[in-house]
């Protein structure tokens, strides 16, 4: 089976092929969703090495438990659920061992800033670097469930219902978690918000 053929497979077809023992089909699933999974993990964890490791674990776990995927939800919802659960587990274990390292951040160069300079305040580049740092710290300090909800909404632009499916909670809980997460982030970066709309 060629990878080019597999590219045209739907998610359900790929899952069926994986269940038949075709490991190449799962490789295609990984390639299809690795950016999304990595994005969520980088958003939640900041430490790029940790994010990579957990992303691998997510797909290995998905492969081993593919029989448990009933197809009631979409494949990416199921993958996000595994991702969020594993990220939360990992962060809790790491927090027990030591304080999270702040130096090993996601590598985003100043040439490609995560927060474009001209969109916020063109005359204050240094301040925008500070904003980026403060934003990362604020996200880092959110409780795990709020952080997961926040990342799924702001990074992946998922609907409340989709987030509720991933987080296994109600839409009302998603709305509440998002409000408190945004409010906490606001409290930490408020001095930098002037002029942003």
């Amino acid at each position, binding site marked *: 089976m060629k990878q080019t053929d597999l590219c045209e497979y739907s998610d359900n077809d790929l899952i069926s092929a994986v269940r038949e023992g075709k490991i190449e089909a799962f490789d295609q699933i990984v390639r299809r969703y690795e*950016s999304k999974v*990595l994005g969520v993990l980088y*958003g939640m964890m900041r430490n790029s090495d940790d994010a990579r490791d957990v992303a691998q674990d997510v*797909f*290995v776990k998905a492969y081993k438990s593919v029989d448990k995927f009933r197809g009631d939800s979409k494949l990416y919802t199921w993958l996000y659920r595994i991702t969020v659960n594993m990220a939360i587990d990992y962060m809790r274990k790491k927090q027990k061992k030591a304080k999270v390292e702040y130096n090993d951040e996601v590598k985003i160069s100043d040439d490609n800033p995560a927060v474009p300079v001209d969109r916020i305040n063109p005359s204050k580049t240094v301040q925008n670097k500070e904003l980026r740092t403060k934003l990362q710290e604020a996200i880092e300090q959110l409780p795990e469930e709020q952080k997961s909800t926040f990342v799924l909404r702001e990074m992946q632009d998922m609907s409340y219902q989709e987030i509720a499916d991933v987080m296994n909670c109600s839409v009302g809980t998603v709305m509440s978690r*998002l*409000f408190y997460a945004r409010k906490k982030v*606001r409290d930490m970066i408020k001095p930098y918000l002037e002029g942003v709309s």
Partner: protein
Amino acid sequence: MNKNCEQFQILLSGYMDGELSAEQVKQLEQHSASCPECAELAADLKAVSAVTREYFSGVRQAVQGISIADEVYARLEEPAVIPMAQPRSRNVFMKPWFSAAVAAGLAIFFGFYFFFPSGKDYNVSQNTCVVDSVETRKGSVMVFKDSATDTTIIWLFSAATDMTNSGESVS
């Protein structure tokens, strides 16, 4: 902030994200029009969302060039790790058959001890051989076969005494 603010503020995220019902939107907009504090919070949360989305956009771009597919594929091809069998217990006293043997031995021992308490003396000839024996901590039971006299001899040995304790013969 008046007492109604909290119930409206919790809706602010839903309002920003277009997740409220028409009725909720109407109520929230009416409240915000008369509450500068909630209006300011709404503006701040909107700004937080804008800044965060820009930040995450950079994260997404940074992630685009990264692939873990080969590492995952390599891990999936690794032979499954078969859990090592637990080392078998070397403690013979923990074996089920040992308990059964002890129980059987004790049953035989006490059975003969109490039901045939006074065995007669018996001289074992040179033609005698041991047919079976059971040993326990309290003593032993030995079964002899004396071919010269065609006699089966059962000896009960108490561990507390020597081997002269008792003997029973069954012809």
